[in-house]
């Protein structure tokens, strides 16, 4: 079976620092995969490489079997690759609904439309609003994002990515800094994602990881230390040493 997403020998260095070292990584359709590792291991960098935010020094990236290594970010997104950011990357001056609708509009292919009628806009707005309801932030639909508490901003971060209806979704620490009440919302939403979407989640909260993931990859200093089922990872001595042993937030 073709992988939904695959990296082949992915390599990235910042000057002398190697942050991605020969990474072979694979997500199948419907995957529920967690990427863990201490801070600075290169997890965010891997997401940036996959989405094309930064170019790799070497290696290839395949999306649904097609080589996307040379494609610009926007084209990858239109082919079904969606992501969230570890650090909120939002349209702070715009309302929550407008934030999500920018994504929904691009997904509908009307983002560059100069003349389209209000009816097309209404369809986009309704799609966006439905997402807000799903993430239980519809109350704040018209609130400027910059006025929201941090936890709710994290929900907007996810809503934008979902507005793209991705087939491969990369979540970079979606629950970091989120109060426990809202973590439940995030978990619900992630668990209710359609089965055919491949999901990769970067997360430090081990409870969340073990509840969600069917496979786990451990990244240490830019290299894959081990990949396996949650049980295998929990039992692995090296993982305990480099990661779990240092406490959850390494």
């Amino acid at each position, binding site marked *: 079976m073709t992988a939904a997403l695959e990296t082949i020998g992915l390599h990235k260095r910042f000057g002398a620092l190697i942050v991605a070292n020969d990474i072979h990584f694979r997500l199948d359709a419907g995957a529920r995969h967690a990427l863990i590792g201490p801070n600075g291991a290169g997890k965010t960098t891997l997401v940036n490489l996959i989405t094309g*935010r930064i170019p790799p020094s070497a290696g290839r990236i395949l999306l649904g079997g097609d080589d996307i290594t040379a494609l610009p970010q926007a084209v990858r*997104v239109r082919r079904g690759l969606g992501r969230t950011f570890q650090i909120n*990357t939002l349209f702070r001056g715009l309302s929550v609904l*407008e934030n999500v609708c920018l994504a929904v509009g*691009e997904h509908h292919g009307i*983002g*560059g439309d100069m003349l389209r009628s209000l009816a097309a806009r209404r369809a986009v*707005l309704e799609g966006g609003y439905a997402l807000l309801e799903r993430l239980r932030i519809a109350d704040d*639909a018209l609130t400027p994002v910059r006025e929201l508490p941090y936890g709710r901003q994290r929900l907007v971060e996810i809503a*934008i990515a979902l507005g793209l209806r991705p087939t491969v979704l990369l979540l970079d620490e979606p629950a970091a800094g989120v109060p426990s009440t809202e973590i439940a919302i995030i978990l619900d939403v992630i668990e209710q994602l359609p089965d055919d979407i491949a999901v990769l989640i970067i997360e430090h909260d081990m409870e969340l990881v073990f509840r969600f993931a069917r496979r786990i990859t451990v990244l240490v200093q830019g290299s894959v230390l081990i990949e396996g089922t949650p049980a295998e990872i929990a039992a692995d001595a090296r993982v305990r040493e480099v990661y779990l042993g240092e406490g959850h937030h390494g």
Partner: protein
Amino acid sequence: MHPIDTLLARHRFRAIELLPWLIAVAVYFVFGDYLPLGSQILIMILFALSLDLVLGYAGIVTLGHSAFFGVGAYAAGIYAAHVSGEPLSGLVLAACAAAVVGWLSGLVVLRTTGLTLLMLTLAVTALLAEAANKAGFITGGADGLQGMDIRPIFGLFRFDLFGRTAYLYCLAVLFLAWLFARRLVHSSFGRSLIGIRENTARMHAIGSPVRRRLLTIYTISAALAGVAGALLAQTTQFVGLTVLGFQRSGEIVIMLVFGGIGRLYGAFVGAGIYMIAQDQLAKLEPAFWYFWIGLLLVLLVMFARGGVLGLIDRILRR
């Protein structure tokens, strides 16, 4: 009201938007002696409006917008002096010439951001100004371009000595440009420009072809600035090197910031007040004018970031 309807309603036409046009028409009937100044103001409003599209909406910080104003002015001027005095075809030609220059320079300039972008926009203007200076045989160089004979509009409306035709001509062109700009900023495309201004990284990450969108609005804006320049050339029947000067680039930014950027009407308020104040104060003591402008800018930056319109907004919301 449902949030969706609230949002849609924000794009609907409001009665207050008629105000500038009522004032402009009233000026025609009440201040007949001031129509030449009136035409100048309308032209600067159009120029500021074109700048608002790139600076206010797309967040492209440029100090070189007079490049397109100047190209439009010279294109219309040379066309009128050497080819035909028909004004409307001159406007179209000016828009096209400015659009081409906008597109070409945008290809280079828009690859950069921040200070580099600012310097490059300045450089483009400086290059064009020097080219206009050197090409004296066609532009008139430092003496300016003269010998235009602008024919009546539609072959009917002759440009008169009192500037009546010129005023109405500028007003009609500005009105059409405003209709177009208004449609544009409320479209999905216009919203995506705001998205780019607010967070370029996220626009990339939601699949928006950012570079192409920026180039599109830069080209459109250049065309509108070119039309403004063409109106100046046609209504004054003269083009001097100052159309390409840094001073005009800087002044237009000041006008727009003063009125309020990214609001479509900041151009009207800013250019209107600035030009009238300049006319009145310069009569007293020209050198003093820049003192007042400087003071005003300091106050604006310290107390009213959104310009006059932003200030009004805040007062109304209290």
